[in-house]
């Protein structure tokens, strides 16, 4: 009977370990968007001096699509990293301003710098939902063919850019 008891305890512990491992697995945080074509979209401009943003703008090159907002504190923390990428002639960054106050957004970008090639305003969150976004900031690496290669939830850092994004870019 001791043998049966030992087996029962072993199987229980094994199941608990498997369950905990599944809960903590990084696979659970992989975006379902990876490997899929970027959805077609067309967003209006954030001011009268610039164009809006369409999915066609991201084609033909590796590009970062960054979801951000002026009301988002983490986006302000991320902003210097994006500026650094731009200043070092890194990958082009395209912005999606999510549910934003455009007057405040334009003032912020004018004062702190604009790291984006183009920005589109997603006023009703329709693109956000199609991209499976849960919060701002969030970034996607898009291939020249328009395939989503990488998704990062949270503030992009120089480390993530260099160690996780750049290795995916084929030279």
């Amino acid at each position: 009977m001791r043998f049966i008891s030992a087996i029962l305890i072993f199987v229980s512990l094994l199941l608990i370990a498997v369950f905990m491992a599944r809960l903590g697995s990084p696979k659970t945080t992989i975006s379902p968007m990876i490997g899929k074509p970027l959805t077609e979209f067309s967003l209006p401009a954030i001011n009268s001096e610039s164009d809006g943003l369409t999915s066609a703008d991201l084609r033909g090159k590796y590009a970062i699509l960054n979801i951000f907002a002026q009301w988002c504190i983490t986006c302000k923390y991320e902003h210097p990293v994006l500026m650094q990428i731009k200043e070092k002639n890194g990958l082009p960054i395209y912005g999606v301003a999510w549910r934003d106050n455009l007057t405040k957004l334009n003032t912020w970008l004018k004062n702190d710098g604009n790291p984006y090639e183009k920005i589109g305003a997603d006023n009703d969150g329709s693109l956000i939902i199609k991209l499976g976004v849960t919060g701002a900031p969030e970034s996607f690496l898009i291939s020249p063919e328009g395939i989503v290669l990488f998704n990062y939830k949270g503030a992009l850092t120089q480390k993530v850019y260099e160690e996780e994004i750049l290795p995916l870019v084929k030279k």
Partner: protein
Amino acid sequence: MKKFIILILIILPSYSFALTAEEHLENPAQEQQARDIFRQIRCVVCSGESINDSKADLAKEMRVMIRNEIDKGRSEEQIINELTQSYGIEILMTPPVIKETSILWFFPIIAILLGVSFIAYFFNKNNK
């Protein structure tokens, strides 16, 4: 008179808010269909709430999107498929029984069976 003015000032902001609330679909059958979908979709920024019950902005945006899709003539299956494509099956309040969710469905059953076996084993042992 002063109390009456204060009362009006208190009521006025909530009345204005009601005017800007989400627009429902005019067709009652379509609105019912939308609500059926809301109850099946998990709020991705809340814990254990459907978008039907959530007050989060993202849940509100999803409700607006779903109503728009229904208005365009999209079926319930198409809308749910599209949301699952974007967010994965985690967005469903009741995940389907598939390989990826098998542990979620069968672990509690196995745990109960093991628990019962333990109790039965020790109960028998103590009775001997």
